[in-house]
C-alpha cells in the first residue's frame, strides 16, 4: 500500500458514506449562508471552499455536557434521611471530523495538554478525543484575518490531524499523519496518490507564502510584561469591545468551562458548559468578589492566557492557532493580532500613557461595572 492516497472529487460522497458505516461523520455543511460542522447526510450540502464559521471543537468538547445525573432519595424508614444516587454515562460513538482546517486540528492539541496529558485526565474529553478521527483539509489560500504561520502553524500544519488532505483540481491528495489515519488509505474509493504528491506539496508551499504574518520578522511573538501590566493600554485597545462571547465561543483553542448543577425537584444534572472570559460572571466568586470586574481585565486575561500563561505552562506553545475567527466575526472588529503586535514593543508605555484620559473609554456595552 502506498503512503499517499488520492480521493477523486466525484467520489467524495461515497467516501463519506463509507466512513459513516461505523462512525458519525461531522463535515462542514452549508446552512443558509454560513458553514457549520453537522452530522453528514445526503440532504446536506457539503462546503469545503472556506473554513467553517465555527471550528469543530464542539464535536470533541461539547458546548454543554452532562457530567452526571443525580437523584435524592428519602429513606423509607426515616424521611429525615436522604441519600443521593449518581449516574454517569460516557457513551461516545466513533466519530470522524471531516474537513477540519489545520488551525482547527491544532486547537485539539491545545486541549490535549490540559485534558489528557495531565495527572488527572478528563474522562469525557479523552473518550471523545480517542474515538474521533480527524481528517483535515489543508488551506489553499488564507481567509480574512487569519495568521496561522505567525503562531507556529501553517495552512498544511499537521499537528492534531490524523489525515491531511490537499485539494488539487480533480481531487484530494491524502497523507496519513497518525497510525489511526493510515486506515483511511484502505477505503475502497481511495486511489494511489503518489503521482500527485509533488503537486500537493506545491499547493501547500504556495499557500504558506500567502498567509500574513502580523508579527514578522519575529518567529513567535514575545510580549512585553511592562506594557501587558499597564491598565491604560487595555482601556484604550479594548474600549470598543462589547464583552460578548463570540470570540471565545468561535475559538478553536478556548477551553474555559463552567460547572453548574441544573436542578429540578429532587433530581438534576451536573452540567459542564463553555465559559467565556469576556463575561462578567467569569471567575465571579461565591463571596461576590470578582477578581476581573471590568472588561479590560477580562480581555487582558484572554490575551494573557493565549500568549503568556499557556506558553509558560506548556513549553512555549502559544494557545492561539491564528484561525482569524475572533477577528472576522467580532461585532466591533477587535483584532487580537494587532493587540499582540502592540504588546511586542517594550517602549510604548509612554505613548499609551500620553494619550490616556480617565473615564473616556466605555466600560462595557452599556451601564455596568460601576
Amino acid at each position, binding site marked *: 500500500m502506498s503512503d499517499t492516497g488520492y480521493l477523486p472529487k466525484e467520489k467524495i460522497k461515497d467516501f463519506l458514506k463509507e466512513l459513516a458505516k461505523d462512525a458519525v461523520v461531522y463535515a462542514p455543511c452549508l446552512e443558509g449562508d454560513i458553514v457549520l460542522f453537522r452530522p453528514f447526510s445526503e440532504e446536506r450540502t457539503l462546503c469545503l471552499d472556506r473554513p467553517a464559521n465555527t471550528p469543530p471543537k464542539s464535536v470533541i468538547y461539547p458546548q454543554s455536557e452532562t457530567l452526571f445525573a443525580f437523584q435524592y432519595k428519602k429513606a423509607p424508614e426515616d424521611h429525615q434521611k436522604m441519600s443521593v444516587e449518581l449516574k454517569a454515562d460516557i457513551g461516545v460513538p466513533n466519530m470522524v471530523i471531516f474537513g477540519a482546517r489545520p488551525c482547527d486540528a491544532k486547537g485539539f492539541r491545545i486541549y490535549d495538554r490540559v485534558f489528557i496529558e495531565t495527572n488527572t485526565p478528563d474522562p469525557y474529553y479523552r473518550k471523545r478525543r480517542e474515538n474521533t478521527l480527524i481528517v483535515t483539509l489543508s488551506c489553499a489560500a488564507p481567509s480574512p484575518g487569519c495568521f496561522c504561520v505567525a503562531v507556529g502553524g501553517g495552512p498544511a500544519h499537521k499537528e492534531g490531524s490524523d489525515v491531511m488532505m490537499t485539494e488539487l483540481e480533480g481531487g484530494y491528495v491524502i497523507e496519513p499523519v497518525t497510525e489511526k489515519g493510515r486506515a483511511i488509505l484502505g477505503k475502497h474509493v481511495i486511489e494511489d496518490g503518489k503521482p500527485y504528491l509533488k503537486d500537493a506539496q506545491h499547493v501547500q508551499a504556495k499557500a504558506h507564502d500567502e498567509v500574513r504574518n502580523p508579527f514578522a520578522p519575529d518567529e513567535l511573538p514575545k510580549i512585553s510584561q511592562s506594557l501587558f501590566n499597564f491598565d491604560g493600554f487595555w482601556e*484604550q485597545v479594548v474600549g470598543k469591545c462589547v464583552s*460578548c462571547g463570540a470570540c471565545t465561543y468561535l475559538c478553536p483553542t478556548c477551553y474555559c468551562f463552567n460547572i453548574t448543577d441544573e436542578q429540578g425537584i429532587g433530581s438534576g444534572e451536573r452540567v459542564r458548559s463553555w465559559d467565556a472570559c469576556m463575561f462578567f460572571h467569569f471567575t465571579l466568586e461565591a463571596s461576590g468578589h470578582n477578581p476581573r470586574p471590568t472588561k479590560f481585565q477580562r480581555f487582558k486575561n484572554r490575551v494573557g492566557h493565549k500568549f503568556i500563561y499557556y506558553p509558560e505552562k506548556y513549553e512555549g506553545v502559544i494557545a492561539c492557532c491564528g484561525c482569524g475567527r475572533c477577528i472576522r466575526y467580532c461585532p466591533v472588529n477587535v483584532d487580537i493580532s494587532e493587540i499582540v503586535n502592540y504588546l511586542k514593543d517594550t517602549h510604548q508605555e509612554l505613548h499609551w500613557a500620553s494619550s490616556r484620559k480617565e473615564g473616556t473609554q466605555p466600560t462595557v456595552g452599556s451601564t455596568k461595572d*460601576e
Partner: protein
Amino acid sequence: MNNAEQIKETIARIFPDVETVICYQQGFDGLHATPYFISIPEQVNKLIWNPLCAQNLTSYLPSIKKKVGIVVKGCDSRTIIQYLQEGLIDRAKVVIIGVPCTGVISVKKVLREIGHQPVVDVVFDDNGNIVVKTQKGEKRLAIADVCPDKCTTCQYPTPLVYDHLIGEPIASNKPKEDVYKDIREFDAKTLEEKRAYWEKEFERCIRCYACRNACPMCICQDSCIAETREPHWISQRLSLQEKFMFHMIHAAHLAGRCVECGECERVCPMDIPVAKLKKKINAEMKELFNYETGVNPDDKPPMYTFNVDEAKIKEHKL
C-alpha cells in the same frame, strides 16, 4: 468638501469642550469599519466616513463618564432619543455630530456576493456602488442591493437630534406603510410554520450573547437572567428550549424600547434574524399604543407608564 473632511473639522472644533469623540476608523480589512475613540485632536486624521460605517456607536454612551462627542446617522439618533426618554444619558454631556445617510452596507451581504473571499481593496464610485476587489476579480455592487434590511424602509435618514449637522438634511423617500410589511408577511404564516422557522434559526444560537451586548437598549447587562443563578430561570444547557427562552426574554424586555437599529442581527455570528422578533413587538406597540420608539424625546415608552384604560385594549370587555 466631503463629509469625512467636514466631520473631522467639526470634531476639531468641539474638542476643547469634550474629552473624547466616538467615530469610525478602518477595521482589519477594507470591508470593515471599527469604532474609534479619539481623545486627542491629532488622532482625527485616521477617521473614516463611508457606507461601511454601519455600527450604531451610541451603545457606548451610557457607560462613558466624561463629556463625549459622537457621530450619528439618522437611525442611530433614535437610540439617543430613546436614552433620553428613559433617562439613561445626560443630554448636556453629549455633543451630537449628525450625518444624513443614504444607506449603509451589510458586510454579510457583500461577503455573500464575493463568495467570502479575502478582500484586497474596496472603493466607492460616484454612482452609489461599492467595488470590492479580491484575488478572484472585481465585483461592483449597488449599495442599495447590499444594504441592511432596515435601510430599505428607512424613515429617518437625517438625525432627529443633533448639535452639528454635516451637509444638507435628506428626506425619506420610502413609504411609511412598508416599515412593517415584512412582519405582516411573516404573520401570515401558520403558528406551526412560525414555530418551525424559529426552531431552525435558534438551533444555531451559540449563546455568545453578541446580540444582547451589542444592543443599545439591553440595560440589565451583568444581571441578565440568561446567566444569573438567582433567579435561575435559564440553565447552562445548550438546548433549544434554553435558547428560545433567552431570545424571547430579550425581545420582551425590548417591547416599546427597541429602536430597530439592527445591531443584534448585524453582530450575530450565526446569521440568526433576531431583529425580526423585536420588530414584530414594535409593530404591536405601534398598533396598540400608537407609539414609535426613539422619535420624540418627550415621549414615555408605553411599558414605563400605566393607564387604567387604554384606548385600544378592551380588557374590561373581555
